């Protein structure tokens, strides 16, 4: 029953998202939606490892950045097409995820130590991408050539010179499809044996081990899946902006953005990252329009709010907005039954 309600809800939501071009034409609002869905994808990547696995990463930028850099460099240096580069971007990032995971989990780093080592790896990648100029073009960044031939728009995965519909909505649908893939993967994981083992490891690693679950293997699986999802966000970013540089790729900004959405939305739930992303960016947008504008368009107001909301959610809503929604639904449902 509750499952059927949930599926209907998802189907309805999908329908609304797919039909967005029918009722939203303002480029500004499409940009807002794209940003929100992009952060939800980053958040879903964090949620797999942090929400379901209980391993709080403070350096998920390393996955986003590596995906973005591979996607950009394969096109820029080797002239490989974007649709082929994509697979290498995801696979390469999974290798990086496996490498970081192997070192961290093999040596049993948990809690604060895991947070610190992920932070250290993203910092190391930041320094390397700035320094290895012959490989990454250094701090200047990688600028991909703009495709100006409308006939090649799809092949080039660039919509700036395509027909009006794709020009306005091409990247919106790109990030929507990526989010659907990310949520489907998470949904599948939640129901699988692997997902159940991951949650068991989060709740009590020793007990899970005693039941014959290999915590190491389960966490490795989670970090690889998290890397793959975050890499997809990187691919979208590079194709949309045709540019990547070390600060955007590996700066702490993306790592922080990735953890806001799932924590506020609801840890370890499929819908949490999307819910959280909509909530904070909705509020951020309103704050920028009102308070920010009144103060002369100064930056920072949205992040002040995000930080405060994070603290308040941690204090009052341990299960995030999704948990709140669920208990409200239950209360209404319970009332009907009585």
């Amino acid at each position, binding site marked *: 029953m509750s499952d059927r309600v949930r599926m209907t809800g998802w189907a309805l939501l999908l329908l609304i998202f797919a039909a967005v071009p029918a009722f939203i034409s303002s480029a500004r609002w499409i940009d807002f939606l794209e940003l929100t869905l992009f952060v939800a994808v980053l958040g879903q990547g964090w949620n797999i490892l942090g929400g379901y696995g*209980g391993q*709080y990463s*403070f350096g998920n930028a390393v996955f986003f950045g590596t995906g973005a850099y591979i996607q950009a460099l394969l096109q820029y240096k080797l002239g490989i097409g974007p649709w082929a580069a994509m697979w290498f971007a995801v696979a390469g990032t999974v290798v990086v995820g496996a490498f970081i995971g192997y*070192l*961290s989990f093999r*040596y049993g*780093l948990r*809690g*604060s*130590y895991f*947070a*610190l*080592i992920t*932070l*250290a*790896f993203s*910092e*190391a990648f930041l*320094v*390397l991408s*700035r*320094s*290895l100029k012959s490989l990454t073009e*250094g*701090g200047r960044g990688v600028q991909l050539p703009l495709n100006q031939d409308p006939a090649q728009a799809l092949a080039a995965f660039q919509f700036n010179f395509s027909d009006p519909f794709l020009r306005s909505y091409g990247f919106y649908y790109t990030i929507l499809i990526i989010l659907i893939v990310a949520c489907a993967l998470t949904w599948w994981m939640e129901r699988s044996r692997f997902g159940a083992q991951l949650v068991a490891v989060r709740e009590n690693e020793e007990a899970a081990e005693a039941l014959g679950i290999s915590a190491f293997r389960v966490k490795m699986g989670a970090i690889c899946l998290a890397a793959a999802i975050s890499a997809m966000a990187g691919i979208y970013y590079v194709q949309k902006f045709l540019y990547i540089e070390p600060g955007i790729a590996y700066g*702490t900004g993306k790592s*922080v953005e990735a*953890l806001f959405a799932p*924590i506020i939305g609801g840890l370890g739930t499929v819908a949490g990252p999307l819910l959280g992303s909509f909530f904070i960016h909705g509020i951020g947008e309103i704050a920028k329009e009102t308070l920010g504008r009144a*103060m002369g368009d*100064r*930056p*920072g*107001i949205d*992040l*002040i709010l*995000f*930080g*405060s909301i*994070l*603290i*308040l959610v*941690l*204090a009052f809503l*341990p299960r995030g907005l999704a948990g709140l929604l669920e208990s409200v639904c239950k209360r209404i449902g319970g009332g009907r039954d009585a």
Partner: protein
Amino acid sequence: MELFGLSIPLYGWQTVLGSAISGVFLGSIYALVALGLTLIYGVLHIINFAHGALLMLAMYGVYFLWRYFGIDPYLAMLVIVPAGFFFGYGLQRYVIGWASHGKDEIILLVTLGIAIVIENGALFFFTATERSVRVPYDLDGIDLGVTYAVYPELAALAGSLLITGGLWLFMTRTDTGKAIRAVARERQGARLVGINVDHIFAVTFGIGVACVAAAASLLVPTYPVHPQIGSLFVLIAFTVVVLGGMGSFVGALIGGLLIGVTEQLGRLYLGESLGLITVSLIFILVLLFRPNGLFGQKTGQGSS
């Protein structure tokens, strides 16, 4: 920072020694920032992600005292250190303790939230403009033969030694210090013998922030103040704390000096930008192979 001007291509022993000496000065600054962090970790067992943001806030405090009241940055310590203590006390008792329900992972995220609020608050109210304090003596110093040390660098080195010594005395000689060590060792037991654990947690956090405020006074004459200045130090401070053993003051001092020297030598041999990789590498290697650090106790419960 082009403070030390060591881009001489001849790597004779003078160059290397000069580089190592400036590494010691740089390292003493890292040690200063790391001292408060290691104290907080030793007692509360949490990584305070807001540490860099608090450093930045204290640096703004020192800057404004100088700008509007003409107070010398070193004298400003008399105001900024007590202010830091009370701010830290309140932060732990009424925000971190309140919001985290005592769960370690949640504390981590709460301090991250505080860091984001403070950093962007500074960006919003003070803007991204770099502000510098000019003191009449900031370029005077002593010629050490292989390098030149300005007084602010010497003051930072002396300050880090004094603060380490002072903290050690405080922790071993005073009742509050003993209570802090008791709480660090055994929370439940401390509570049973009548120690107010929540109060001690807040006092510890307050002292940690007071340390970072003292560091701010010593940093302002050499570093410009802007909202991002804290994040420049915080990652290195984490490295220092882990290297020295979480909770160990002497470890933080030696760890800071080691990191400073390594960074300077790394820059000398690998170049300005790639040289920084040495710090990240040390961080990763220590976390993997010696998570209790060089001087931390095996139990991971180190105090002083």
